[in-house]
């Protein structure tokens, strides 16, 4: 097992590096120059207002304010160097956990990710957990009552889950449960008047529990309901469909028939014989679903004003904030790889016949 984990970690390392290089190249080859946005938003007007009209003009300089500003900014952000040199510097810095500085926020990308990642993780973890629990239960119900109305309803709902874009569901949830029923807040992680819990993990629910801050816990919980369900719904659909198919497949096996023939209660047959043997495809799906939900959270976060990494990525991509986009891609690749590695490891615990070494 140890050798397997080391081998997989090394493979994960290679994937992360390759993903980083790919993302770095793609963002830099995309048409557009982020310095132009920076120039427009701030410096150029000032350079022009004074420099060109008086000092520059009178000294006979031909360089214009905007040009000077662009040159200054490119130099400041290292964008004046050849692409391969920029890439090499970036890769070297990554090993020091230095992802560079965001052009947009002017903070270090690592600190930005550290600030926004917990919010996204909280949403995604609850989404995956909910998808797993509800999905497996739905699949079990569906299998037990196969061919009956409840089975058909479960299948239709799970199909809806797979087919519905998270952001559409997010807007519908807001319309019904916020605008019309007023049951849940419009968005954010916690009410404006309530101080966030002291940061331990960055996950408000966990931190408020650990610090015994019940007011924060209640507010965080209520704020999590709609966004987490919006991203969870798709996951429920996926897990239900895979789990149902897997359970039905296992249910046909001889050892399940033998179990029943021995006179074991149906629940025991279902739990010990069927579910346990059907778990591997479900775990694999959960690993993939984690990545899917993280991706889905990008737009969901926007709808629910959720201060997570999704919104940071969108904003960075729009402004071609190279280092922020690449840094986020790196972190997401790593997390995705790690979750799937954990899923692989868990196979061995679920099915002792699996031996990796």
């Amino acid at each position, binding site marked *: 097992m140890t050798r397997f984990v080391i081998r997989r970690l090394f493979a994960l390392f290679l994937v992360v590096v390759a993903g980083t290089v790919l993302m770095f190249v793609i963002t830099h080859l*995309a*048409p*557009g*120059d*982020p310095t*132009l*946005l920076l*120039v*427009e*938003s*701030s*410096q*150029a*007007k*000032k*350079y*022009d*207002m*004074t*420099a*060109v*009209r*008086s*000092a*520059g*003009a*009178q000294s006979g300089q*031909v360089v*214009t*304010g*905007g*040009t000077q*500003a662009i040159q200054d900014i490119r130099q400041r952000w290292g964008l004046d160097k050849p692409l391969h040199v920029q890439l090499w510097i970036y890769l070297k810095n990554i090993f020091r956990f230095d992802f560079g500085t*965001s052009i947009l*926020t*002017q*903070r270090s990308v690592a600190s930005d990710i550290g*600030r*926004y990642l917990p919010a996204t993780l909280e949403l995604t973890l609850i989404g995956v957990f909910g998808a797993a629990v509800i999905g497996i239960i739905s699949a079990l119900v569906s299998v037990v009552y196969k061919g009956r109305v409840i089975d058909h309803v479960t299948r239709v709902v799970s199909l809806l889950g797979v087919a519905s874009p998270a952001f559409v569901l997010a*807007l519908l949830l*807001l319309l019904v449960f*916020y*605008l019309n029923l*007023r049951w849940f807040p*419009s*968005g*954010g*992680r916690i009410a*404006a008047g309530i101080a966030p819990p002291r940061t331990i993990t960055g996950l408000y629910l966990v931190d408020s529990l650990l610090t015994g801050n019940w007011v924060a816990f209640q507010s965080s919980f209520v704020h999590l309901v709609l966004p987490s369900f919006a991203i969870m719904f798709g996951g429920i659909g996926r897990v239900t469909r895979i789990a149902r198919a897997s359970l039905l497949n296992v249910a046909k096996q001889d050892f399940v028939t033998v179990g029943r023939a021995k006179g074991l209660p149906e629940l025991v047959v279902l739990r010990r014989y069927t579910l346990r043997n059907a778990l591997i495809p479900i775990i694999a799906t959960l690993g993939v679903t984690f990545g899917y939900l993280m991706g889905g959270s990008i737009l969901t976060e*926007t*709808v*629910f*004003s959720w*201060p997570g990494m999704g*919104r*940071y990525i969108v*904003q960075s991509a*729009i*402004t*071609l904030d190279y280092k922020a986009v690449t840094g986020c891609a790196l972190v997401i690749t790593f997390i995705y790889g790690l979750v799937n590695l954990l899923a692989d490891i868990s196979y061995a615990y679920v099915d002792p016949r699996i031996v990796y070494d």
Partner: protein
Amino acid sequence: MTMRKLLTLVAVLAAVVSFAAFCAAAEVVVTYGRTAVEPGDALDCHFGGGAASYQNYPLIYEQLCEYNILTHQIEGLLAESFEASEDSRVWTFHIRKGIKFHDGTDLNAEAIRFNFERMITGVINDAALVNYQNPTFEIPDEYTLIIKFPEPFATLPTELTYNTYGVMSPTFIKANATASDPWAVQALRTRAVGTGPFEVVEYRPNESLTFKKFAGYWGGVPGMRSSPKYDKLIMRVIPDATTRAFMLETGELDLAEGIPADLREKLAKNPNLKVEYYPQANALSCLMFNSSRAPFDNLKVRQAITYAIDYTAILQDIERGHQQPMHGSMPQGMLGADPEGVSRHRDLDLAKKLMAEAGYPNGFKTSLAFSTQRWAGFDAIAEVIQANLSEIGIDLELKALAFVAQKDLRTNNDHTLDLYTVSLGTGDPSAWADSCRHPSTDPVFDPYYAFTWESNPNPELTTDLQDQAFLTADTVERAAMYHQLDLLVMEDFAVVPLFQISTPYVMRSNIYGYVYDHWTRGRLWDLEKRG
């Protein structure tokens, strides 16, 4: 204690508690929905930053000068008065007495000089003033600041209206300075101490910024700053327009920016809401030619395109009458703009005739680049222009691009026709006039101009006019020069001005007194929440 006394005591206590609860509940809170994710410099005005940052600065900080929306003049804000030497090289500012920072320390000339030093030495401001003019400072007494420039600087008061010249508490900066961060840049990421009408209470990056009314505020000047009429202001980042609209409907937001036209129309029907439009004296939307290239180097082609466009369809059908028609190429309200200036109209016959005279009786094929990131209605406007130009034989390919990609095309001179909106800083006409510069004196295209004028037939004249106007202190003379430039631009059909931009706001119907202008990005201190 008798029962009666006990009951009286209980009644009195209940009354006191009720009164205290009433007082606590009476706190008036205004909640504002903003679109932008905060950049890191949201509280440090010396950095410049994005639109949201510029909106924060005048709430927290004040500058030496400010545009007065009542007198329409640039007046002293922190300065009670100011005067310039005849050659505009020496400026003397008389600082108001009795102004305090949020930390309780006093404002004086030295505090303002310290702030200029932060901009210069810290190299953190986009402060051209200090980068290019190399000023020196003198403080003859506690409340007088003299700034001396090696060159004339006639537009200094306008320059100083810019929100990035806000004055911070030197005490705060010194208290938070470290060896590696001598100007307390890190501290100013989350805290801020100025003299403005609001104090920062809590900053949650990417989520919200909460202010409370500054109890020790000096009172401001009518038309510039005033003491807020409510207790607390919460600026919430709500990136999704539909969510902002829902929150306005429930009353969770009192006012919100960036609501698109279709949602505005729906919300306008809600009796609890109203929609207001604020024309901007520094912003316009236009169709630009690359007149360094054929066929747009041909005056008749530019004229033909100008006369082919259906301005009524754009202003009335697409923009629903909420944007202002242009008179000339300068936005109204800008110094030198003429309210009676040239207004373009559609004349299809004339346009066809001009195309034939230009040597293109059968038209030609070209493209139009635009970005809806810049203006939401550009896709519809582009379609109107495409249909209009097809009537004079021009086959127009529409290129919907990310804004950075559109800028890239223009920077590399790969563009042909562009739809563009421009926001011209303080609204001083010198920024608008930079567009008139001829490419021969401008080797690298500066892409933030209002338009480009590669076909400029008389660059020497326009450059002279620009330089003279910039160095002239007399506003009447300046206005005349810029007006002359505007006429030259319009004569050469250098650009097709489409409309002056109005900024829409949707607000609850009990909100009064709010004005949005480009100087302050929203006079939230003047706002009143009734009922």
